[in-house]
């Protein structure tokens, strides 16, 4: 703690911060550009100048950059000093000298930090009338627009992209006032976190191209606190809607999860919700085809179907909310409720949950990963399966720089010094995988082997850490030595990390990871343990202890069950086609989904479900944190004939039809409380967010900024008589600008907005994402109203460490029937995002990867076509030679067009030449 004096007032601040950070945390406004809470200070823009005085008696003072000055005790500064004010205004004027006359046609306009700072510094009149410098733009691919004229050379983009995110295809070019920020040559930005440039850049140089076509200003969109559905991490997002379409995803700050950054799958994968081919009304099969039907007809048909059926099974989904899965379980009965994962994933998810819930080490958070100082990534290709975690792991690796800074007695925010000191030195990270991963460039050591061998390595590491953990017999000397190296390194670390997950498709990998984490725990280490799960709500569905899907398919195929209700799931992604078809051909199928999938085409009745943006729900992320997502907009407002609603609401309606009790208007809180009451593992979910009756100063929280325009015109084409604004019985949010829109203050808890109810970043004078600093307890810290989400269980520290003792046998290479592994892909593996046009355009073409040895035995060269037979289906695929693959293993990209879902450990035969 330090005491500083700002404009004659005394404040207590954290002395290790810089003055800018400290003043912003106090709620004082100092304009700035180049400083960013996650990127530190470089002093490039000179916008943050304040007057510093020697002591209380000094009246002359001198200008200093607040972002480069420590907030030590006895600091006297003035923000409002006339000289400092004039200096800041002139800095802004200089930055604007070459600025184009673009605001009306600039997609940053209305949430532009440069606009905000120009207003804040008071620069309002252009005095520079000479010619302006111009730049040519680059095509940066389907995600990002480039408009270099608007650059103010703050260097944030470069620092984020190259240093923070590890991108290699971007940089600063040119010299003096000509500097250019872009790629060496035009082309798609390769880094998986490129989308953050749109928020990191304080101007309109980088904007969201996916938003461009249907652009609207930030103030014109309706928002709700939401959760990303594209992997298990549950990053918080702020989706914006206008005229009944989702227009953009922005990051929503959560100080324990994603804080300032998202991955590109999460940011640009929203297009599935706007697809024209989505079911938006009910459908009933007629003459083998689905035909539109009214909700009443569909319900009448379903009521008859369900009442008449002897045995109904319900199949849930890891991409549906807890409430939807629960409502299905309620409708069909617990004994008829089946897991929506594939059978292999069912086992993996159960294993991962058991490890985290019953073991002595609970999951760490995404944010906490960043403070690790050594890591073992066991078998999980995090960049492809849980991308945001790879960014956090990179920060753990970069943490070495912080140690070096501390040794030099420098401050943690001195970003320039950090880069010079750290160069390419990282904290140790060990990566094991079947194939090359995007973490390899920062890895100390990589191990590429079959999952059994990776698991054996992991188990050996655990044994070296704690001899009580089982030893692995028969390891070769190199592996033995490697295991010892890893063990020593993890033991030497202050905060070792163990990262793994279900992505490798191996329970043995999960067990090995658990052994390592538990061994470190047993040795008294504070270990950060992190497991990635298959999908957004895999953890939640796994906790419901449903029976495996295969049993439901068997029951349907052999006639034991006659009706199947499938909720938000495409069974063809979960089991082999023949098996699913055998079941669905016999069954009478009811599907509730928001996408048109091969499964919906078999339906007798199809009910249109809401996407995450159109309904309320709770999902449980990979750390066991239940998070609420809120409905962003009312679909019926612009299109009264649309019948989409949450699956849980459909299922509750069906329940009331079956029971005939007429109670078909369940609210979210009813369903969620029922879930919490019936299943004790979910007791905490009702605390994930305030319930519908919650009010702040007597108000609901507003979903739209107060400047929201066109309220009396946007629907006037339908009718000039405006309907009442849609009412929301399910949440404490209003479909309107009428409601609480404040950021809350420290001293009056009455106006505190719970973190779970912050829909978007805005504060008076702060329209850009920089406004998050107004919501945080300290800049870059936690939300003042609490980071959203609750953990469903706390660490079971009392649990004794009972190591897994099963040691898998080593992998036996067999190049005649090599093992096929599905290589997870950030773009393509996840269903919903791959249905968004911009993401779809980034999905790789199908190929088969193999190492040079195998290719040579088959006399294959790169790009040659080879017929691959996997589980009976023959695919003709071009060859990619990659020596990162071990012997006896071939890889195909998961989710590439034409590639079926590959079962774990599937064997393949290869035939040279195109398929017959």
């Amino acid at each position, binding site marked *: 703690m330090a005491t500083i004096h700002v404009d004659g007032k005394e404040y207590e601040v954290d002395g290790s911060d810089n003055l800018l950070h400290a003043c912003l945390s106090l709620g004082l406004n100092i304009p700035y550009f180049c400083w960013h809470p996650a990127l530190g200070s470089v002093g490039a823009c000179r916008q943050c100048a304040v007057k510093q005085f020697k002591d209380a008696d000094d009246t002359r003072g001198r200008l200093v950059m607040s972002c480069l000055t420590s907030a030590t005790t006895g600091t006297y500064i003035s923000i409002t000093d006339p000289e400092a004010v004039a200096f800041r205004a002139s800095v802004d004027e200089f930055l604007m000298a070459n600025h184009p006359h673009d605001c009306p046609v600039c997609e940053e306009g209305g949430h532009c930090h440069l606009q905000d700072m120009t207003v804040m510094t008071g620069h309002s009149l252009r005095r520079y009338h000479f010619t302006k410098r111009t730049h040519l733009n680059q095509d940066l691919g389907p995600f990002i627009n480039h*408009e270099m004229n*608007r650059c103010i050379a703050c260097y944030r983009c470069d620092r984020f992209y190259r240093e923070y995110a590890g991108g290699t295809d971007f940089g600063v070019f040119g010299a003096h006032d000509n500097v*250019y920020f872009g790629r060496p040559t035009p082309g798609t930005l390769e880094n998986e976190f490129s989308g953050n440039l749109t928020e990191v850049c304080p101007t309109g140089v980088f904007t969201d191209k996916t938003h461009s076509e249907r652009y609207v200003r930030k103030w014109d969109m309706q928002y709700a606190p939401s959760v990303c559905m594209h992997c298990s991490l549950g990053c918080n997002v702020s989706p914006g809607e206008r005229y009944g379409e989702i227009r953009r995803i922005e990051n929503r700050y959560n100080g324990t999860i994603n804080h300032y950054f998202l991955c590109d799958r999460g940011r640009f994968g929203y297009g599935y919700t706007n697809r024209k081919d989505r079911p938006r009304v009910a459908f009933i099969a007629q003459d083998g085809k689905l035909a539109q039907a009214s909700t009443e007809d569909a319900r009448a048909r379903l009521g008859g179907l369900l009442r008449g059926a002897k045995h109904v099974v319900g199949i849930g989904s890891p991409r549906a909310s807890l409430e939807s899965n629960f409502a299905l379980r309620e409708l069909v009965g617990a004994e008829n409720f089946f897991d929506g994962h594939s059978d292999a994933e069912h086992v993996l998810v159960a294993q991962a949950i058991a490890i985290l819930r019953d073991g002595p080490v609970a999951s760490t958070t995404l944010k906490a990963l960043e403070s690790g100082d050594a890591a073992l990534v066991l078998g999980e290709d995090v960049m492809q399966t849980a991308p945001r975690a790879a960014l956090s792991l990179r920060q753990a690796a970069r943490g070495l720089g912080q140690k070096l800074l501390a040794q030099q007695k420098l401050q943690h925010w001195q970003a320039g010094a950090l880069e010079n000191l750290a160069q390419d030195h990282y904290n140790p990270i060990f990566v094991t995988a079947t194939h090359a991963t995007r973490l390899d460039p920062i890895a100390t050591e990589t191990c590429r082997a079959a999952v059994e061998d990776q698991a054996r390595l992991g188990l050996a590491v655990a044994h070296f850490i704690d001899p009580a953990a089982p030893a692995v017999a028969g390891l070769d000397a190199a592996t033995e030595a490697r295991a010892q190296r890893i063990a020593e390194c993890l033991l030497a670390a202050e905060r070792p990390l163990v990262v793994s997950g279900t992505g490798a498709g191996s329970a043995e990998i999960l067990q090995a990871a658990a052994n390592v984490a538990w061994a470190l725990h047993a040795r008294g280490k504070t270990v950060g343990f992190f497991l990635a799960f298959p999908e957004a709500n895999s953890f939640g569905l796994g906790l419901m202890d449903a029976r495996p899907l295969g049993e439901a398919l068997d029951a349907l195929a052999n006639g034991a069950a006659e009706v199947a209700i499938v909720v938000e799931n495409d069974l063809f992604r979960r089991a082999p086609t023949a098996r699913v078809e055998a079941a669905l051909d016999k069954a009478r199928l009811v599907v509730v989904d928001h996408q048109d999938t091969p499964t919906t085409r078999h339906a007798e009745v199809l009910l249109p479900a809401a996407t995450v943006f159109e309904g309320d729900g709770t999902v449980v992320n990979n750390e066991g944190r239940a998070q609420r997502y809120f409905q962003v907009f009312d679909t019926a407002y612009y299109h009264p004939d649309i019948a989409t609603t949450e699956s849980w609401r459909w299922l509750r309606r069906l329940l009331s039809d079956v029971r005939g009790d007429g109670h078909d208007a369940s609210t979210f809180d009813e369903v969620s409380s029922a879930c919490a009451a019936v299943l004790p593992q979910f007791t905490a979910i009702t605390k994930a967010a305030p319930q519908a009756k919650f009010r702040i100063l007597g108000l609901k929280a507003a979903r739209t900024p107060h400047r929201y325009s066109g309220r009396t015109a946007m629907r006037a084409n339908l009718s000039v008589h405006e309907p009442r604004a849609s009412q929301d019985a399910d949440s404490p949010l209003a479909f309107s600008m009428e409601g609480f829109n404040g950021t809350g203050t420290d001293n009056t808890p009455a106006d505190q907005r719970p973190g779970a109810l912050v829909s978007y970043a805005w504060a008076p004078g702060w329209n850009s994402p920089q406004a998050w600093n107004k919501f945080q307890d300290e800049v870059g810290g936690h939300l003042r109203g609490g980071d959203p989400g609750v953990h469903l269980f706390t660490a079971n520290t009392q649990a004794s460490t009972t190591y897994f003792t099963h040691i898998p046998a080593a992998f036996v290479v067999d190049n005649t029937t090599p093992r096929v592994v599905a290589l997870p892909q950030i773009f393509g593996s996840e269903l919903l995002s791959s249905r968004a046009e911009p993401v779809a355009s980034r999905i790789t073409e199908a190929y088969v990867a193999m190492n040079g040895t195998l290719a040579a035995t088959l006399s294959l060269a790169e790009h040659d076509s080879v017929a691959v037979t996997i589980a009976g289906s023959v695919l003709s695929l071009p060859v990619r030679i990659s020596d990162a693959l071990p012997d006896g293993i071939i890889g195909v990209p998961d989710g590439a067009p034409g590639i079926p879902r590959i079962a774990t450990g599937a064997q393949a035969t290869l035939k040279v030449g195109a398929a017959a």
Partner: protein
Amino acid sequence: MNDIKRILIGFWSNLVTLWLIFAHLWRHKDTVNYPEEMPYLPPRYRGRIILTRDPDGDERCVACNLCAAVCPVGCISLQKAERPEDGRWYPEWFRINFSRCIYCGFCEEACPTAAIQLTPDFELAEYDRQNMVYEKEHLLISGTGKYHDYNFYRVAGMSIAGKPKGAAESEAQPIDVKSLLP
């Protein structure tokens, strides 16, 4: 005593009023025989709103949404689109609900391109309120309106077909990044 004084004052004030009204018989008349006779309205009178074109005949509106944001009754709504052939921003549709408009002229003041303008036409009455909802085809005229010369794209830095980077007013030729010359 006070009551009598008040009655007298009241009486006097009524007489003055009567006299003033009577005197108006000889004053110049402000009312006209509308609609047979049309009053003169200055060009800057704030009546029916139009969307104008730039001097080159292209749509001026760039769909920046500022008019909609400033409108106190929220009666303007539009959607931005980009013309594939030349990259110009334009409103895909543009709607004003004149049954809500209060003719304050804020939209015209906010417009950075001089596209939206108020005109002296005030005859907007309709039997059916729905007819007061004007779409772009009802709003867009073929001329420049009150401001004849302004063409936003000549000053804006964004390039469009026919106006590459460096071709706008007061713009230097694009930088050659590879040059190290001062």
